[in-house]
């Protein structure tokens, strides 16, 4: 099977492993949101798909090859991951940060590849950060900073872009900016898999939802097809009604009975 797949993926030990026997194929060319309550294994799934968490044996494969068997740099040319809490280096500029996304294309004595300038310029352009290229990261707002990180990940020019809670800790307008950007990334054929917390934002912007509960995937499909009051009760333990977003018409989950 081609693509990025997890087969019988189990992470953690004992009575309650973080992920147990999970099967998943990342939907190609789409923006997929992973949702679920805290501690359901969302981040673990995303990290396992990128080798940041090393899964056992051949549980995660890219085009039928276990991730561990691929050279780290070659893998990094195919799969990018933006963690939830990346560390900002002291005094680095936006351009300097984005340039670090080009590492997988370099060699120890060749810290440059012919495609670097175009890739960096494109990533800055796509995230609307061109005007801020020479700003130190510390001087940016939270939203701009997140866009700089996304630009770094885009400069990596990977087919798969994995994002661990890219909208957390941002205010609403910046959250929407990031979600629009995720959609724009898939518009040119790339695949985005992002852990999101806000169900309604996920339903509105993502092509597909993956709903997780207690280390397993309990539903997967388009927001219209899978979001039901029963699912919300089962997964989040919350009574709800499902209406539709007045602007986009996508499903909108509203808590009831309070």
């Amino acid at each position, binding site marked *: 099977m081609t693509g990025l797949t997890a087969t019988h993926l189990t992470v953690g030990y004992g009575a309650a492993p973080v992920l147990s026997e999970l099967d998943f194929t990342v939907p190609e060319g789409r923006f997929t949101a992973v949702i679920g309550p805290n501690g359901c294994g969302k981040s673990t799934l995303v*990290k396992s798909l*990128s*080798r*940041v968490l090393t899964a056992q044996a051949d549980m995660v494969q890219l085009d039928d090859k276990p991730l561990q068997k691929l*050279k*780290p*740099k*070659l*893998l*990094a*040319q195919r*799969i*990018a*991951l*933006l*963690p939830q*809490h*990346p*560390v900002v*280096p*002291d*005094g*680095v*500029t936006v*351009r*300097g940060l984005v*340039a*670090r*996304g080009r*590492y*997988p294309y*370099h060699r*120890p*004595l*060749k*810290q*440059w590849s012919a495609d670097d300038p175009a890739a960096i310029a494109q990533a800055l352009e796509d995230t609307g950060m061109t005007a801020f290229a*020479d700003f130190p990261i510390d001087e940016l707002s939270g939203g701009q900073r997140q866009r700089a990180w996304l630009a770094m990940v885009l400069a*990596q020019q990977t087919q798969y872009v994995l994002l661990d809670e890219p909208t957390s800790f941002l205010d609403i307008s910046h959250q929407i900016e990031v979600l629009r950007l995720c959609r724009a990334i898939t518009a040119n054929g790339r695949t985005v898999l992002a852990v999101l917390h806000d169900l309604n934002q996920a339903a509105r912007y993502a092509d597909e939802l993956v709903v997780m509960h207690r280390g397993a995937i309990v539903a997967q499909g388009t927001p219209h097809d899978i979001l039901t009051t029963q699912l919300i009760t089962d997964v989040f333990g919350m009574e709800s009604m499902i209406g539709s977003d007045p602007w986009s018409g996508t499903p909108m989950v509203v808590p009831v009975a309070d």
Partner: protein
Amino acid sequence: MTVKMFRVGERIALGYRRRSVLIWLVMTAAILSLAAATLMLGKLGLSPADFVDILSGEASTATEFVLQRVRGPRVLIAIMAGAAFGLSGALFQNVTRNPLGSPDVLGLAAGAGAGVAAASLLPWAIPTAVGALAGAGIAIGLVIVSTGSGLSSTSKVIISGIAVAAIATAVTQFVVTATLRDEASRLTAYLVGSLNSRDIGQVGLIAATLVLAFPVILWLSPRLELMELGDELTTSLGGKAAATRTQAILVSVVLAAMAVAVAGPIAFVALMSPHAARMLTRTSGPNLVGSALTGALLMVLADLAVQQLPLVEDLPVGIITAGFGGVFLGYLLLTEFRKGQS
């Protein structure tokens, strides 16, 4: 601050910043001037005419003696041990992402000193370098084990470092009291870090260490730049975080231990150099060249001071660096813990 590329054919391309290169050149010039001053000032100082004689191979015996025995080895050791301390500090601070994670704060230098002292007690001769390396290895091992979380937590590392340094000092004190008086006073001078009466063999040791470390550091450096982004991003960018940290710490321990072997446990040069280099070049990244040059500069400067300045004349050079370094450490502690609070 755009990055330019130094290229050799198709195979080699290394990034640099113009400001950094300018600063490096200025620092190199300063180091060379101070080295020349070290050779020329004072009673035994060489005159410009002596230099001409040396270059034409017609130097007098007295001139050769000063150059090869008295001042020459001393200034070379100051430069190279300083560079080794600077590199060691830069590597440590980078992979631990801890601005205080340097060999002196960690008790590594004290451990290397204790290793040298303990080796002098043994009935059979152990080379100083081996004693230093063993002491440094044990010290860093103790710190890693006792923090329980590696080297990344600033406060835990400082506390463990204090404990390890105390143990090392106890070992050292024991050795000093247990040895004969002559040996003890020589050892005491060594243990504060002194560059008096160095010989050409020690120059060779530190030179060989730097020459061997250079290609390893060059090979590590692109990954060190990634390490600043955190382990997760380093891994997802293809940089092997855990392996990089282990390799960098190994190189760093060897550099610090060898610098201690030739110059004594000189305090705080390793801690100060990377910070000073970063302030001067105003760049992010591991700043390896800048740190090495800053370390060399600090050492030559301190050594010249103890040779020529009236108040501090003939003190071991380590006392001077400890004085400046202690103040600097206090400043770092204040800024770091303030940062932590905000």
